[in-house]
Every structure is written in structure tokens, then in C-alpha cells.
């Protein structure tokens, strides 16, 4: 693998922003940082997305990334501890709830554990964090220290990588499902939630930064904080690349392929009978399954035998187009036009959703 990866451009020089930016200019400058430095651009992510990684390389990523996920509530608790305003805390604490859940078995960390288990890890091994790369730990811990020690504005600004994450998540889910037969939609449940949680979180944080970065100096600090956070993420992928792709130098004590896994069932048969939906399939709702607008609650629901499915906006948009005539590809094209998005990324998401419904026997093709 000899692809040449252009080095990311540096952050705009501080000198350029000696003047006070308008809130919209500030937002543009922050987005520009993501456009140049977000880890979606990292070679490791490109390999992951394009299906070029081996199963063990995907495992290394899932394991190390667990450490980041597990520390996020610690980071957010540190941010929370610095907020003297109850209304701020009420918003911010939702992040902790999202990650920790309301009970055992719930929340983002748990979903990440499911992902790690989905690629073969023994749960207890992941929880022990024994095989995590030191570089992963150092960068994650630097992030926790950063938010505890810097100003609240910088702490909040450092979270703004969430502005960019829906893109990376869509790419990742699409790429992983398409390219790795050992990845299932259940394994990727973590990302389903983040697709809606991250924009909500980012909207709030962006608004805060735009409102509170009221001098050129504060604006520079906010931009530097976001740059720092991009580096936290980038460094983790550097370490993975170095240890598990090239030159393949795994540090002492870090995870080595073949360890920490649960025994694979020999030739465990794939789920019987029903093959997965493909782009040419023309899905339809069978008799006894109906999409209906629920006037009382002001939302669409899918009515099915003995149950009602609550639908998010994306699912409603798809199901409105499911008519037995349109193929999945055609639905994706139509939604791509409507939402100005990449139809192939949408297609992968749609396939996941439709497979889920087919498995519950409320969708046919």
C-alpha cells in the first residue's frame, strides 16, 4: 500500500484572525479546521472505510477506540464540574446519559462493547483495557486534562469535532457493512444513535462558542481547542497505523492478534433462510403492515402484527418511498437528491434499516 497521503494543511495562521470575526465567520473558520484536520482524512480511516483492513486490523481499531468511548463521560463530567450555570449543566449532562445509559446494558459505551464483541473480543478483555496502545491512552487522557484545565469556552470548543462526525459515521457504516462480512448492523448499533445525538450536541456547543468567543483572543483559543481535539483523534489513528498497518510495530503489552478473543464457533451457519437485501431489490410492506400518521402524537408509526414501530425521520422518508416498485437504489437516489447527500452512503443506511424490518418479518421484497 503505497498511496501518497497529502499532509493536512496547518490551521490558518493566527495572524489572519487578529480582527474579531463575526459569529458566522467564526463558524466557517471552525468548520475549515475540520475540513483540513478531522480524522476522516487519516489514512487509517480511509483503509477502514474502503474495506482494505484485515479483520485483526478492524479489531485493533475497535479495541483502542473503546478506551476513547469509555473516557468520554469522564471528560464530560470534568466539563460539567466547571459549569456554574444549571441551565448549561442540564444540557451537558445529557451527554453523560447518552454514553452511560440509564441502566446496565444501555448507553453508548455498552453499544461500543457490543461492537467489540461483534468483531470477536471477549468482553472482559476489552473492559480490562489491558491491550490498549499507550499512545491511545496518552492522547485520550490529554483530552480529559485539557477540558479540566483550560477555560470552559475551550473545553466546549474542543467538543466541536461532533460537527463533522455524522459524515464520518455515515461513511464508516456504509463502508464497513459493504466491505466486511463479519460486521453486522447489530454490531454497528453505536453509530445509529450517534447520527442523531452528535448533531444535537454539536448545535448546542457551536452556539455556545459563537456566543461566548467575543474577542479575537477568545476566538483564537476556541480554534486552537478544536485543533487540539482533532489532534487527539488523529494521534490515535497514527498509533494504530504504526502498530497494526505499517511498519507493524506493536509495542510491548499492546494487543496482539489472536489474543483476547472468544473462541469462534466452527462454521456457525449464517442466519437461515433469508438473504440480505441488495440494491436491486424492490421492498414492499406486506398485508398487515401499514405506515400511518398518528395524529394524536404528531408522528408517523409503522403498524404491524401486535406491535407498533416508532420511526425516526430517516425511516419515515424511506418508508414513504417503499412501494414494491422502486428499488433500494432508486429510493437512495431520490433521497440523495432531496437531501443533497451521497446516494451510495444513504443506500447502505437504507439496506441496514430494511434488513432490520425484514428480519422482523414486516417487510418483503
Amino acid at each position: 500500500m503505497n498511496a501518497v497521503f497529502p499532509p493536512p494543511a496547518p490551521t490558518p495562521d493566527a495572524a489572519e484572525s487578529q480582527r474579531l470575526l463575526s459569529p458566522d465567520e467564526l463558524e466557517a473558520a471552525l468548520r475549515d479546521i475540520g475540513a483540513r484536520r478531522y480524522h476522516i482524512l487519516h489514512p487509517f480511516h480511509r483503509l477502514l472505510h474502503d474495506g482494505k483492513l484485515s479483520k485483526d486490523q478492524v479489531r485493533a481499531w475497535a479495541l483502542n477506540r473503546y478506551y476513547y468511548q469509555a473516557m468520554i463521560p469522564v471528560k464530560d463530567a470534568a466539563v460539567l464540574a466547571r459549569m456554574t450555570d444549571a441551565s448549561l449543566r442540564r444540557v451537558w449532562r445529557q451527554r453523560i446519559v447518552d454514553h452511560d445509559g440509564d441502566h446496565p446494558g444501555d448507553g453508548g459505551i455498552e453499544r461500543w462493547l457490543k461492537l467489540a464483541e461483534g468483531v470477536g473480543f471477549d468482553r472482559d478483555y476489552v473492559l480490562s483495557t489491558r491491550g490498549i496502545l499507550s499512545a491511545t491512552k496518552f492522547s485520550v487522557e490529554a483530552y480529559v486534562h485539557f477540558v479540566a484545565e483550560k477555560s470552559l469556552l475551550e473545553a466546549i470548543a474542543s467538543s466541536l469535532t461532533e460537527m463533522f462526525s455524522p459524515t464520518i459515521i455515515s461513511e464508516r457504516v456504509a463502508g464497513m457493512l459493504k466491505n466486511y462480512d463479519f460486521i453486522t448492523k447489530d454490531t454497528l448499533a453505536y453509530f445509529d444513535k450517534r447520527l442523531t445525538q452528535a448533531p444535537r450536541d454539536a448545535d448546542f456547543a457551536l452556539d455556545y462558542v459563537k456566543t461566548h468567543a467575543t474577542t479575537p483572543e477568545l476566538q483564537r483559543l476556541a480554534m486552537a481547542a478544536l485543533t487540539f481535539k482533532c489532534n487527539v483523534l488523529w494521534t490515535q489513528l497514527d498509533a494504530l497505523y504504526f502498530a497494526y498497518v505499517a511498519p507493524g510495530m506493536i509495542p510491548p503489552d499492546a494487543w496482539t492478534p489472536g489474543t483476547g478473543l472468544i473462541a469462534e464457533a466452527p462454521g456457525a451457519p449464517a442466519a437461515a433462510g433469508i438473504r440480505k437485501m441488495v440494491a436491486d431489490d424492490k421492498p414492499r410492506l406486506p398485508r398487515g403492515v401499514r405506515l400511518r400518521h398518528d395524529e394524536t402524537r404528531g408522528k408517523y408509526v409503522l403498524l404491524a402484527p401486535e406491535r407498533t414501530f416508532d420511526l425516526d425521520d430517516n425511516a419515515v422518508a424511506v418508508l414513504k418511498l417503499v412501494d414494491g416498485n422502486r428499488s433500494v437504489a432508486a429510493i437512495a437516489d431520490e433521497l440523495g437528491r432531496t437531501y443533497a447527500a451521497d446516494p451510495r452512503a444513504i443506500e447502505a443506511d437504507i439496506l441496514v434499516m430494511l434488513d432490520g424490518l425484514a428480519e422482523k418479518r414486516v417487510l418483503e421484497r
Partner: protein
Amino acid sequence: MNALTPNRPDVPAPVGLLAELTHRCPLRCPYCSNPLELDRRSGELDTATWQRVLTEASGLGVLHVHLSGGEPTARNDIVEITKTCADLGLYSNLITSGVGGALGKLQALYDVGLDHVQLSVQGVDAQNAEKIGGLKNAQPQKFAFAAKVVELGLPLTLNSVIHRGNIHEVEGFIDLAVKMGAKRLEVAHTQYYGWAYVNRAALMPDKAQVDASIRIVEAARERLKGQLVIDLVVPDYYAKYPKACAGGWGRKLMNVTPQGKVLPCHAAETIPGLEFWHVTDHSLGEIWRDSPAFTAYRGTDWMKEPCRSCDRREKDWGGCRCQALALAGDAAATDPACSLSPLHAKVRALAVEEAAETPPDYVYRTIGSNVRSPFKEDVNS
């Protein structure tokens, strides 16, 4: 517009209506969920009243209507009532025994827009099934009915109520569901209220049998993924936490009896002192919102310890009120099926004891019988 919430955010809109159209039924299952005192035909609501009830239900936010009984096709107006559901956009679910006149009405029900059929099967082996249901020649009728449902393209769910008389047939129920072309199978362990409470000693399986049945279902779920959905209801007495009865008292479901009494769950009449309102005296919305039976155990204010301070109080809502009454002698107590109830160990010991004994004969359900529960004060005396 929302008829309920503007001034009463504490009252959620109902999602389901169980319409017990009649208590008449050709079967006599000893675990029937109908009350011991069955309504007679002469007291049943007329067609127009059911249609009004359905219209009001739709306005309240109800999405699913379960047309049940007794045997709902025993009513001459079942097609008209189903059509009303379809006209209102309500999802209609026919819960049927598949015997008697059911098959003859199926095409007409399909034509007016019936959404789903849930067919009960008492056993796999015909002789065993007909002993449990108390009706000769029921099994071939059920098979013919199921075949017609699938032929029409209606989704079919098989419902099997599990007890010691058929728990050895769980694997067979699964095969049967696949063979019949059902999309769903309910493997529902008996819930011990009403007739099942009377027959508890004849029905209660032992723990090893229950565990084995759960393992069979779990293996089949994996094997038949995408082909058959299997819902499993485990027996309360062996559970760790109780079920949220009807999704929480007065939160999701209501039950209208053949005579028009509106209940928070089908067994609620076993609780003495509750005042139920009739659809002939009040609108369904008034009843849902304000009738004493619905407000009695809605929310968490009525709870005692250990429910009151429990983290799970808004998950299982204290479990089943009827079971709390039957086993603890107090409808506001924690459901003894819950491992946190002080009575749980006793209840479990009782189940183990009964399952170990030779089962007595079934007490079959009949209209006009004078059955008393033999277990009046068996736990809390």
C-alpha cells in the same frame, strides 16, 4: 388535536383497545383469561355501540384494536365491526380459536380490510390439544383455518399458551408454525389469573421444564431468524421481575367487556372495590381519564415499598395488580412475582410444590358455573 393531554400531562394517550366482543366460545380452555363469571349473550353491546366505541378510541389515539372474546367470530356483526376499524384507520387484529364459524367469515373479513390474525393452538398432538381445549374435532378446523389465512395473504400469528399439559410440545409448536406459514409464534407461559388461577395446580410446570422450554425457543429464534419471529412470555412465578401489566395500569391499553364495562386489564374485575364505568354511561375518553378504576393505580403515587423507591417503578409499574391481590391479599402491594417482594420466596415455593404433585383434573370454563377459587388464602393467611 389531542383529546387528552392539554390539561392532563399525567394521562398518556392509549395505544391499544382489547375489544372482548363476546364471552361465547366453542372452546373451554382451563386457563381462559375471561372472568369466572362470564357475560351472557343477552347483555352484549350492539353493533352501533361498538362502532361508537371504536370511533371514540380512534379519537383518543388508539392505533391497534384486538378483536377478541370469547370467540369474536361468534358475533354476527364481526365483519361490520372489522370494517369500522378499517374505515377509521385502526389496525385490526382478530384473536380467534379458528373453530365454529370462523372459517366461513374469513374471506369477508379479508375483504373489508382485516389486518392480522392471531390463531390459538392448544397443543400439537390433536388428542392432547382437544383435551386441553375441551372440544372434539377442533384441531382439523384450526389447520384448515390457518391454511386459508395464509392463502389469502394475511399475516398469521400462532398463539400457544404453555403449561404442564403441553410444555413437552414447545418444539412441536415451532415446527407447526413454520409448516403453517405463520410469521409469528407466541410461546406464552400461562399467567395465573382467572380460570388459570383456579386450575393452577393442574397447569403449573416445574422449573426444569420451564428452563428447557426457554432454551428451545432461544435456539429456534437463532435458527429461524428472518423466517419466524418468536415471542416468549415466561411464567411469572419463576421470573426475577414482574411484567408491566398491560404496559402499566391505564397507560397503554384498555379492555371493553362484552357488556361495555371498561377495564384497565382483562382481569381487573377480580379486584374488589374498584368502580368500573360503562361505555353506555360515559364517553371512552372520560372513562380513560377519570374513571375510578383507571385512576386507582395509574402512575406511581399509589405504590408502597419496595416499589415506591425502586429504580424499576416506571419500568414494570409494580407488576400485576390482580396477581398482587390474589397472592398478597392487597392490590397495592408489590407483585409477588417480583424477587424484591417479601412474598416472592413463598410464591416460588408454592409453584415448585404444585408442579411436583400429580395434576388434578381441569376445571373447564363454562358460562353460568359457580366456581370459587380453591386458593383463596394460600399465601397471605
